[in-house]
């Protein structure tokens, strides 16, 4: 259990912060009185976030950050230390929601999905946790996993491997940090109204299949299906406020939909059946 509450005026950094759940978290932190660095790899989303969060004035800052790049993480820490002194809330939210067959996944698929969804979280912890512990003021780490980090489907093995790891990371950190100044929470969202459906189009060149030919029609159909489905999902700002409540309460887990209860029970019961 973290020993002190996060104070107004503290500094937060949100990766993947310029769209979707990340933008919702950034907005909720701003509402709570924090200074916020919105970090994102996409320049178009950073531009849109500047417009959306413009009324926050000097309370919000923008940073281009590719979470797969260690040098950029080090630069982010240098920026925080030089310009702000200390970081208090680190939200490791950047992720890519690419599904598909494990058996057909290429080296590039594995590299991209795990580099962002798991390594990007580990890199954030490696970079900022020593700093957060050293300054000694109340702090908190939030990592965005997924319901896919607790249960699996038949078309998301690479994604689930990464997201299971993120849940484990936060559970381990909570144990390691117990009684100290830094808390940790894992967010396991279900359907949220985000742009996760267009991630395949933002795949960086270095993570492209060398010999793949993209089926534009199939991609468009898949995007349309998920866009329509997620439009029915929870509002990202509402999710951001749930995350802030979780930070304040030093909650181990934040979920976004009570309706996922039976699916997690089914996994528990499967294990119990073999015990």
């Amino acid at each position, binding site marked *: 259990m973290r020993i002190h509450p996060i104070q107004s005026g503290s500094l937060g950094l949100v990766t993947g912060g310029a769209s979707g759940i990340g933008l919702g978290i950034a907005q909720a932190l701003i509402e709570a009185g924090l200074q916020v660095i919105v970090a994102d790899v996409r320049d178009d989303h950073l531009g849109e976030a500047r417009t959306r969060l413009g009324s926050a004035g000097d309370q919000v800052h923008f940073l281009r950050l590719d979470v797969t790049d260690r040098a950029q993480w080090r630069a982010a820490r240098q920026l925080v230390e030089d310009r702000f002194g200390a970081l208090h809330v680190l939200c490791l939210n950047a992720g890519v929601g690419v599904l598909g067959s494990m058996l057909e996944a290429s080296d590039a698929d594995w590299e991209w999905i795990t580099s962002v969804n*798991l390594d990007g979280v580990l890199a954030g912890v490696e970079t900022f946790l020593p700093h957060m512990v050293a300054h000694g003021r109340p702090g908190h780490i939030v990592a965005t996993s997924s319901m896919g980090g607790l249960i699996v489907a038949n078309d998301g093995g690479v994604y689930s491997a990464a997201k299971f790891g993120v849940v484990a990371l936060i559970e381990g950190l909570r144990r390691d940090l117990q009684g100290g100044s830094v808390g940790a929470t894992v967010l396991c969202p279900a359907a949220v109204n985000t742009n996760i459906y267009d991630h395949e189009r933002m795949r960086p060149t270095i993570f492209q299949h060398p010999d793949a030919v993209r089926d534009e029609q199939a991609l468009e159909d898949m995007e349309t299906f998920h866009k329509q489905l997620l439009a029915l999902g929870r509002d990202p700002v509402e999710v951001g406020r749930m995350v802030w409540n979780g930070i304040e309460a030093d909650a181990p887990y934040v979920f976004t939909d009570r309706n996922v209860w039976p699916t997690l029970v089914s996994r528990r019961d499967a*294990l119990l059946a073999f015990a």
Partner: protein
Amino acid sequence: MSSLIGVALGDDSSPAFGLGALALPIGRLEVADGETNISTLRAAVETVPGAIDALILTIGSDQRALSEDPVDWERRVRLPLRRAFGVLTGAGRRFRQAGHGVIVVVAPSAAIGPAESSTPELVLLRSIVGMAEALRAELQATPVRVSIVFHDDAGSENLSTRLADVLATGPMYSLSADISPERINAYFKPLLDAIEQTSAGPPLPDIGPMAAVYDLAAAGAPSR
């Protein structure tokens, strides 16, 4: 079951003792320590000559202290996870093509339950469990089965008997004695409590059987 191959992952080969006691011809697939290319790892499994009925991937316990500063995430998580993915999907592709086969992941029981092992080990083990469960889900419509066999550190359990049973019947899990109902419930209770405290999200259309792999009949759970 006529033949199987074993692949060991990690510094500790303690679970391999269970393989030695199996009354089956066992080949050992040696994968170079530094090999992390998924295509190469898959090819190593897919091109093993002769008929192979099962692949057993054993993961040893991480004997390092709870706190290591700084943590070498590359060596302790990223590389073994990538190697596991290459080997397991190589076996999945081979057995799917052959129309039969059993894939078994033998992992420390620390993967299930509240955090007790070091954080890097916990991350690696849970990631591999998620990977193996998802592989079972992906192959569920085929004759290929994927099982996870948990072993405890004491090594006193009859691992070879459980392995033989898993190879014959292909259930989703085989638990070591230390994974008790109390331990399972202790892990899931805070998760389920947190979900219960959450409001219901907007209603969504039915998108199919998420988590269908956990259906007790599909998981091959013993009848009570």
